[in-house]
Each structure stands twice: as C-alpha cells, then as structure tokens.
C-alpha cells in the first residue's frame, strides 16, 4: 500500500488567519491512492486547517494542490465533492426528522418529470451503497432514532453516494464509545481495500498506529515528518507531536492515604419504572488518594455523578463528606464540599457564549463573599477580573482576554479553565468526570499533573474515566461499575488492565 502511486500532492501550503496566526507554515505532503493516511498533532497544530484547504472550505494564501496529476483549486466544498474528495466533520450535521435515505439523497434526489421524488429508486440506490460497503444501516430509519455511530455512517455514506474517492475524517472516534470504534475501523479498512483513499485526523496515537498505513505529524503549523506506521512507535510520535519526551508511565509517588473524606453508604438509585441504576454502593475515598471509576459507559457512572452532586435523588443510602451527611443537601450546599469537573464542558461545565471571566467565577461568586459588593446586590467585577487573570496565568490558559467568549478557546484551554476554577474552590473532595476526554496529549498531560498535585496536597479525588489507561496512570485504587453494582474495589498494585477489563465487560473475572 505504501508503494501505491501518489494521488494528491499539497505543495508549500501557507495559510495565515488574520491578523497574524500562521496556521500552516510551508506544508508539503503527499497522499497515495488506496492508503489510510493519518494526520496527527495537538490541537491547533494545523491538521484540520490543512484538510480544510484541500477540501475548499478555506483558501490557502499560497501553495498548490496537485490532484491526479493536475493542479486543482477548490473554491468551495461542492467543487471538491464533484472532483471526488469529501470530508466528514467532527460534529455530525444531519436532519434528525428525515430518514437515512432522505438525508443521503438530499441535494441529488432522483425525481420524475413532475419534480416528485422517486422514493423507490432513491431507497434502492441508498440500499445498494449500504450493501456494497457492508454498513449495516436501515435506510428507512429516522436519523433521530439511531445511534451516534450510525449517524456517522450516514455522513460517510452521503459522500460515498456522491462517489468520492478520497474521504477526509476529522476525529471520527471522538464521538464514539470504545465498543463502536473497531467497527468503524473495519469499515475504513474495507473502503481502503476497495481503492478509496482515507485521510484520518486524530490525536489518539494508539488508534492511529492501529489503523494507518502512513502517518504525518504536525506541530505548530509545520509538518514534522511523514512515517510508515509500521516503522514508528507511540513514544516517537508523541515526541514529534509535542517536541519533547512525553512520559506515559506513572509519576505517582507513593503516599499513604489519610482518613476518609467521601463515604458512600448503601447508595441505590431505582428509576420509576423499576430499573436499577445504582445497586447498594459502599465505598470511601480517602485524603491524598485518587480513586478511579472504571466501567463501560452506561453502567451507572452517570447516575453516580448525579447522586453525588445532588442532580438526582438516590432512592436510598447516604453520602458523607468529612462526616457531614450531605444526602439531603441541595446542589449549592454540596458545592461547599465538592469540586466538580463535569463530563460535558459546553453544557454543564461552562456557558460557551458567556465571556471567559463569567465562566471562571461560576460557583465562586455564590460561595465567596469577596465576589460581591453592596451586600450581594452587585458583582464585584474588578475582583472577578483579577481572579480570572490569576486563573489564566496559574493554569497556563491560552486566551486572548478575560472578556473573550468562552467558545473561542480551544477544547484544551476550556478544560483548563474549568479544572482551574474547580481546584481553586479548595474543597477536600474533587469529583472528576472524564477530565481529559477529547483533549490533545499536551493538555492531557497538564491536567494529569494538576490531578497529581491535588493528591499531593492531601485532597481526595474520585475520577470517572472511560480511558482505562488514564485510570491506571493516575489511580491509587480502582472501582469497577457493572450494571450499577460495584464489582471491584482494587488497589492498583494488585490488579492489571486484563482483570479490570473483564470485570467491566462481564462483572466477574474469567476463570481460565
């Protein structure tokens, strides 16, 4: 595959975002026919911009693109698609009210002379494509009723229906659960074997190594190198991405845990129609200890977080923090005891449209009287601004100003603001729900450092993560949730990923 003829050449591409951000700095790269070519790099390294230039979504300031031996210049995505190059974006843009086939044929509908859609033919054409690529989709299903993974397939099929030869995928695995990823990879491999060229943007190195034929690494708008996947390692890729060595082994120093901070007793949550979400949980998190919660998504993690935070009321059981019974506290009362980093940055963690400083002071402004003046009637904006500037500095946030809208920050910087805000609350107990999901290697490492720092300070940390590697990297103890039950409570030294994995999947250790 790596000896296939070159299909696309991008030569000396330069892209400047006004006023002065050099997004692509003289990038030259080639893509071969029938290969899976990954483009890796940290957020802001320019990998998405490079693909957008190829796809005609944005225009390069200089440089040229040679496609099938001819120089091309796409002014808009429609031209790229017509030439056979299509891109699936990270956020899935479909019409939930329409069926799968309606979404796919939209814009190129087969019609009769009256302008009436030829449903039978449209369905048949879509069905053919589904069968051809073995996509396992129901063309008549409404998109609102299908899973995220299936929606992603619809996006890919939309392009295949338009007969593209080159598929650009922008971090397609970010929206998938771990169980859905192998299926996507199998489909991409089939497409590649059928002669399609796949350009795969990602920052998950394990995935990239597993899937790709060749890998191009980008850093700060420059191409570092293109290497065959078989001839590199994760360490090497990470070094090229970050520009220095990245440590994948634990830096957790041994430290005897203190007394219990969080104590959960007989916690159960039963839904109205009888389904048990949490089944009699009992555990502690002690001072200076990181406890990781492992489990396949949907086994009670969501409900555990909700009951700890007071978003959902448990059916029975009690929750203590430092011997204070918080079971019947409302959310604000709990916030005096709990720092909380929620899973969804844009929904629960912060307001994307608010300016950065408003997101930075949330919760603080209710708990700390220094944020208000005139007996709480007005916000002390001067103090709030100062607080935000300190947070930006202390947590290495890259932001244009405290007044910039939160959504203009990169994902990594958004998460740094939220983590910074929560850690500054000075509570003894810290609840982290997927603290590094969707972050690049550099930001992830930074957040991990912060988590280890608060452990050293003697705070108690409960961390929920879908990333088993992260759990093993940070935790002192691992709890495993399976169908709402605690099926494992294991010190990290006495277990291994295989054992935890089989607890996650089956609720017990396989006897072999």
């Amino acid at each position: 595959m790596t000896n296939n003829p070159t299909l696309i050449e991008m030569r000396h591409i330069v892209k400047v975002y006004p006023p002065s951000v050099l997004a692509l700095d003289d990038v030259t790269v080639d893509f071969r026919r029938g290969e899976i070519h990954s483009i890796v790099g940290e957020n802001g390294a320019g990998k998405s911009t490079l693909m957008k230039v190829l796809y005609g979504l944005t225009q390069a300031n200089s440089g040229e693109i040679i496609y099938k031996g001819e120089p091309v210049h796409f002014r808009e995505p429609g031209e790229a698609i017509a030439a056979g190059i299509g891109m699936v974006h990270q956020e899935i843009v479909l019409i939930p009210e329409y069926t799968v086939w309606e979404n796919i044929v939209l814009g190129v509908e087969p019609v009769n002379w009256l302008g009436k859609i030829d449903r039978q033919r449209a369905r048949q054409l879509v069905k053919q494509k589904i069968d051809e690529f073995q996509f396992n989709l129901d063309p008549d299903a409404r998109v609102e009723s299908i899973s995220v993974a299936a929606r992603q397939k619809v996006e890919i099929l939309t392009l295949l229906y338009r007969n593209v030869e080159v598929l650009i995928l922008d971090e397609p695995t970010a929206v998938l659960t771990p169980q859905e990823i192998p299926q996507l990879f199998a489909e991409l491999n089939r497409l590649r074997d059928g002669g399609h060229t796949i350009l795969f943007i990602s920052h998950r190195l394990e995935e990239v190594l597993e899937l790709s034929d060749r890998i191009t690494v980008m850093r700060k708008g420059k191409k570092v190198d293109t290497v065959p996947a078989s001839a590199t390692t994760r360490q090497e890729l990470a070094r090229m991405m970050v520009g220095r060595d990245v440590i994948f082994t634990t830096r957790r120093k041994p430290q005897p845990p203190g007394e219990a901070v969080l104590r959960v007793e007989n916690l159960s949550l039963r839904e109205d129609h009888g389904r048990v979400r949490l089944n009699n949980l009992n555990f502690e998190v002690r001072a200076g200890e990181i406890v990781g919660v492992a489990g396949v998504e949907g086994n009670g993690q969501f409900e555990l977080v909700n009951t700890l935070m007071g978003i959902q009321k448990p059916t029975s059981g009690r929750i203590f923090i430092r011997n204070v019974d918080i079971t019947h506290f409302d959310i604000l009362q709990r916030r005096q005891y709990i720092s909380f980093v929620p899973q969804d940055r844009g929904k629960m963690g912060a307001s994307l449209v608010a300016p950065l400083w408003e997101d930075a002071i949330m919760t603080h402004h209710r708990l700390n009287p220094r944020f208000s003046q005139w007996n709480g009637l007005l916000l002390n904006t001067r103090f709030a601004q100062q607080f935000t500037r300190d947070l930006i500095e202390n947590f290495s946030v890259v932001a244009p100003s405290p007044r910039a809208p939160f959504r203009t920050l990169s994902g990594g910087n958004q998460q740094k603001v939220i983590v910074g805000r929560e850690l500054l609350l000075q509570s003894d107990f810290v609840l982290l729900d997927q603290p590094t999901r969707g972050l690049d290697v550099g930001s992830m490492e930074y957040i991990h450092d912060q988590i280890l720092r608060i452990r050293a300070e003697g705070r108690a940390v409960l961390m929920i993560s879908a990333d088993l590697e992260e759990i093993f990297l940070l935790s002192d103890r691992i709890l495993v949730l399976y169908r709402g039950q605690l099926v494992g409570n294991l010190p990290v030294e006495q277990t291994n990923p295989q054992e935890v994995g089989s607890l996650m999947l089956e609720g017990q250790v396989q006897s072999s």
Partner: protein
Amino acid sequence: MKILIGLINGMISGATPILLAALGGAYTYYAGVFNIAMEGMLLTGAFFAVLGSYYTGSWLIGVLLAILGALFLSLIFILFAVVLKTDEFVTGIALNLFAVGATTYMLRKIFSVKGVFSNPAIQPIPAIRLPLAENIPFVGEILSGQILMVWVAGLATILTYFLIFQTRFGLRLRAAGYNPARLDSSGVPSSRMRALSLLACGVLCGLGGSFLSLGYVNLFAENMSAGRGWISLAAIILVNGNPLGIALISLLFGFSDGLGLLLQGYRVPSQFTAMVPYIATLIALYFYAARKRRLNSA
C-alpha cells in the same frame, strides 16, 4: 335550512383568505423563516386588487396586481431577513406597519377618500355556477355559486401538500428549516430555499388579499385585513404547518366568522360579534397547549 346554508357559505368565504395566507405561511414555516408578514401582504394584496380592477375593469388584472403587490413585500423581506440577515420578527413587524401606512396613504392620494373606497366600477371576482350540481338540494346550493377564489384556495391546499411532502423542492424546503447547515453542505444554498418560500407566501397572500376586496366584499377599507394574517399564523402554529390541518383550522375560524355575521342578524352588537374569531383563536390555543402538555407528560 336557509340559516344552515347561510352559515356554511359564511364559513367558506370567511375561511378562504385565512386559508390562502396560512398556506403561504406554511412554506415559510417549513423553510425555517419566522414570517409574521402575512397580515401586511394580505392588506397590500387587497389594495392592489381594487386598484387594478377599478382602473382596468378586469378582475383578473386586479388579482395579478394583488400578487405583484404582495410579492413586493416578499422582496423587501428577502432583502432584509435573508440577504442582510436582520431579525425576522422585527422585519415582519416593520412590513406589517408599512403595509397599513402605505395602503392608507395611497387610498387617500389615489382615490381621495378616507376610510372606505367603494365604486361600481370595481369588477369583483366572478362566482362559478355549476349547472349540473345546482339542482342537488343542499349540497348543490353550497357547491354552486362559490367565488372562483374559493376553488383556487382548495386547489392550493392540495398543491401545497404535494409540493411540501412529495417533491424535491419540498424535501429541500423542509431541510432548510430543520437543519440549514446540512442543506448547505449538500450543495443547495438554504438561503435560496428561504427566499423561494417567501415568494410562494407572497403569491398566496396576494390571492388571499384579492379575495378580501374583490370577493368577500367589493371595496377597499383601511386596514381591512383586520387580523386575518395573524389568525393564519395561529392556524399554522396550531397544526405545525400541515396544509390539510391548516384547511381544517381555517374552516373553523371561518365558521366563527360566519357565526359572528349570523349573530348580528339577532341584534347582537356588531362590535361584539367581531370578537368571535379572535375568541375562537384563544380557545384553539388553549386546546393546543392542553394537548401539548398531555403529549409531553406521556
């Protein structure tokens, strides 16, 4: 029997302008345009229908002029809300106020009257007699003798239903409302669909307006649309834009209109009977909210 036939005929002619305006609004509803300009478009249509019919002696030219007048408002709407991306609600309010002011001004300047312009030279839209059906008792008395525009409205209902739910145009139109980004990325500019929906709305409101001043009555009065455009908006929202549902709701409003006229015959003050359609709107909204709450809790 006479009363019943009178009531049904009153219902049909009361429903026709609301139905035409609401069908126009259905296009913009599905295209995702928050369009409240039906009121102004109806009024403009009504004025130009009288203008054309009076000066040329042809009701057909009156109807065509009514369409052009309403389309003019559509073009302004497109310029502001689609091209310049101003707020649709504010644009609609401005157009409605503009329509009242402009038609009143032109009424006084061109016809030199205040309030109402009525003249035997205004040619009404003809009624259609059906010689075969005429002799059927009851049904024949309703079917025959309806004004042409009533049949046009019925036809427009079926055509609108077909266009929105069966054709390529409809699939793209609704896509523009559901998720414009998806439509754009499939190569069809969503702004084009929004503009087309507004043009369709202009045509239908022009027809509705011409019925008001050349069919329902044969004159032009200041602000004669009298909230029918707003009622049409209520009709659209009540049935989520479905053309068949719109027809049903329009008949309901038409019925309350006819009922108001009937009550006037029984010496109920006309100011009171004029409230009936609007009270009907409020009652309909109540049932809509009650049903929605039931659906949500289920």
